[in-house]
C-alpha cells in the first residue's frame, strides 16, 4: 500500500488485537476514502474490538455510540437541556447566560466527534438495533459531516472527519442506501491458526500444551450441533484464564475428556446440558 504524503498513518494492529492483513487494508482504504466501514460477523469476532484497536494504534480518541432500539437520531447529535435553562431563568444563580441557548445545548456522541479538536474514531455499535429511519438519517449526517441545531439555527460542522466504524450483528438487513454509503466487511470466525495467535497475544506466557489442548477442545465443542449460542473468542479467553488459575488442573486432563468450568463457555442452560451430555459420551480431542 502506498502512503499518501499528507494522510494519516496506516493502521497495523494494536496491543491485544490480532489483525489479519485483509482487514487491515480494508480499514486503511476506508480511512483514505473517508467512508464509514460497516462490520458484520457473529458475536465474538472482534467487531467492537477493532475500533478500540484503531483508536489505540493511531492515538485517536474513541467515541462510542451504543445504539438502542428506541433511540432517535437527535439524541446522538445533541440535547437541549430545557430543564436547566428554566431553572436558571428562575433562580439566576448559575454562571450560564440564560438568553444564550447555546449554553444549554449538550453534544451527543456524534456531535462530540464532530466538535473534537483532533481526529477521532467514532464507533457506532450495533446499528441494527435501531430502526431503518434512524440508520438512513444518520448516514445523511455522516455523509454531509454536518447537522443543524434547530433551537439555535446553527450548523455544526465536523472539524475533522472522524474514522467511522459501524458494527452490526445482522439481526436485521440494513437498507440499500445505507449499504451504498459504507464499505463492507464480514469478519469470519477466526480459524484455529488465527486463534492460536490471539491466545498468545492475551497469554504471552501460556503453556503451549494448555493452549493447544484448549483450542482443540474449544473448536470441537463449537461443532456440537443444536447449540444455540456458540462459544466465541471471549468465552475461550475466559475459560483459559479459569483453567490457568486452577492449581488442580493439568493440561492433559483435557485429552482425557475432563472439561471443567464449562459454564464459562456455554451460557444457556440448555446449551450447557447438551454440551455436558455430549462431551461425557465421546472424547473430544
Amino acid at each position, binding site marked *: *500500500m*502506498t502512503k*499518501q504524503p499528507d494522510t494519516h498513518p496506516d493502521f497495523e494492529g494494536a496491543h491485544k488485537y490480532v489483525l489479519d492483513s*485483509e482487514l487491515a*487494508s*480494508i480499514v*486503511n*482504504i*476506508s480511512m*483514505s*476514502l473517508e*467512508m464509514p*466501514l*460497516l462490520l*458484520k460477523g457473529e458475536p465474538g469476532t472482534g467487531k467492537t474490538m477493532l475500533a478500540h484497536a484503531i483508536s489505540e494504534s493511531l492515538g485517536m480518541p474513541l467515541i462510542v455510540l451504543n445504539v438502542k*432500539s428506541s433511540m432517535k437520531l437527535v439524541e446522538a447529535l445533541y440535547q437541549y437541556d*430545557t*430543564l436547566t435553562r*428554566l*431553572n436558571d431563568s*428562575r433562580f439566576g444563580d448559575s454562571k450560564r447566560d440564560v438568553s444564550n441557548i447555546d449554553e444549554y445545548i449538550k453534544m451527543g456522541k456524534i456531535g462530540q466527534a464532530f466538535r473534537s479538536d483532533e481526529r477521532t474514531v467514532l464507533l457506532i455499535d450495533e446499528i441494527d438495533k435501531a*430502526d*431503518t429511519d434512524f440508520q438512513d438519517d444518520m448516514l445523511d449526517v455522516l455523509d454531509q459531516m454536518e447537522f443543524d441545531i434547530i433551537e439555535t439555527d446553527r450548523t455544526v460542522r465536523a472539524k475533522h472527519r472522524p474514522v467511522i466504524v459501524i458494527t452490526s450483528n445482522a*439481526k*436485521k*438487513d440494513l437498507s*440499500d442506501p445505507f*449499504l*451504498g454509503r*459504507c*464499505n*463492507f*466487511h*464480514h469478519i469470519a470466525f477466526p480459524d484455529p491458526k488465527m486463534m492460536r495467535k490471539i491466545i498468545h497475544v492475551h497469554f504471552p506466557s501460556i503453556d503451549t500444551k494448555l493452549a493447544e489442548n484448549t483450542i482443540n477442545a474449544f473448536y470441537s465443542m463449537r461443532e456440537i450441533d443444536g447449540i*444455540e449460542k456458540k462459544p466465541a473468542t471471549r468465552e475461550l479467553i475466559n475459560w483459559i484464564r479459569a483453567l490457568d488459575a486452577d492449581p488442580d488442573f493439568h493440561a492433559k486432563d483435557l485429552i482425557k475428556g475432563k472439561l471443567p468450568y464449562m459454564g464459562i463457555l456455554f451460557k*444457556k*442452560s*440448555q446449551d450447557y*446440558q447438551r454440551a455436558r451430555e455430549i462431551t461425557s459420551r465421546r472424547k473430544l480431542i
Partner: protein
Amino acid sequence: MFINFFYKLKEVGIPVTPTSFLMLQKALQKGLITTIDDFYTCARAILVKSERYFDLYDQVFAYHFEGVPIPDDKGFEIDEIARGMLDEWLQNPEKVADALGVDESELADLSPEELIEYFKKRLEEQTERHEGGNKWIGTGGTSPVGHSGYHPGGMRVGGESRNKSAVKVANERRYKDYSTRGPLTSASIGEALKRLRNMVPEGPKDQINIDETIKKTMKNGGEIELIFDRSMRDRLKVILAIDNGGWSMDPYISLVQTLFDYARAQFKELKVCFFHNTIYDYVWEDPSRYKKPMKVDDFTRLDPETRFIIVGDASMAPYELMAYDGSIHIRERSGKPSIERLRFIRDTFPHSVWLNPVAKEMWNYTQTIQAIAGIFPMFELSLDGLEGAVEYMRSTR
C-alpha cells in the same frame, strides 16, 4: 478501468451500484491499490455489501483475473424446478401429468427420488428443444390417455400416504421458503408486532411536559412548577408459548427465535414459556423444559386481557392431543387430554392465537393441525399471517 469486471458482477446478480464503482475508481486513482490482493479486498469492501455474495464475488474474480470458468448453475436450477414439480405433483398429480403429456399412472409407481430424476430428465429435454427456456408446460403434443382412471387411494405418492413418502421433500421445501423468500425477517416481525402495541399512558410520571410546565410557571408568576407526564408504556401483557421440543420444530427454531427476540424488546410484560408438541398440565419457563414448571391451572390467576400467543407447528400424533394419557412425560398425566387443556387456555384468554410455521397449504394434511385450528384462530407464521393475527387480536379487544 475494470468496467467489464463490474458488469460481470452485475450480471451474476450481485447488487453493485455505479456510485460504489466510482468510489473504487477513486481508490485506484489515489494509488491506494497497488497489488492484485489489495484490489481483491478493497473492491470487495467497496462493491459487495453482504457476505451472502462473497462467494459469488470470488467466482467472478477468479473468472475475470485468472480465467477460471464460472460454474454453470443450470444444473442447480433444474434441480430446483424439478423439486417444485414434485411438490406440484403431490398436490395435483393430474395436472402435472397432463402438462407433461404422460399417463399419470405411469408415474404413480415411482418413488419421490425416482420422480425427481424423471422430471429432471424431462426438463433437460425441454430445455434443449426450447433454447434455454424452461417452459415445460404445454409442450407435450400427445394427449394424456386414461387419465380418468386416476385413483388417489391406490397410489403411493398420492392421497393419504403422501405425507410419509414425501415428508423429506416437503420439509426441505418449506424450510427453503423461509430462507430465500424470507417472509419473516426480524424487521418485518418488528413491524407486525408494533401494531400489537396498545399505546396507553401507563408508565411512571417521568417525562417532563415543557408546554404545560411553562404555562403553569407563568400562572404562578414565575415560580417554577414542573409538570410531568406518564411516559408511554405498553400496557399489553403477553404470554408467548413456544414449542421448542422435538424434531418436528427443528427447522423453525431459528425463525421462532427471531420472533422471540423481538417480542422481548417489544413488550414490557412478557412471559415466555415452552412446551413440547402440545400443552398438558404444565408449561415451562426455561427452554430445557425442566426447571421451572408453570401450572396451566394457574393461568386463571392472570389477567384475562393477556394476549396468549402460541407458536408451534401443531403437528403430532393424534393420540398426543386426544388421549387421556397423551403426554410423553409421565408425571404430567393428570387425566385430561391436551385438547381439553387447549380449550381451557382459549377460554381463559379470549385474545389468543396460534401461529403455525407450517405453510398454510399444508394444514389440511395434518389431522392435529385441523383439530387445534378448531380451537385457536390459527395463522401462518409469515408476515401475512402475523398481520392477520394482529388484526384479529385488535378486533377482539
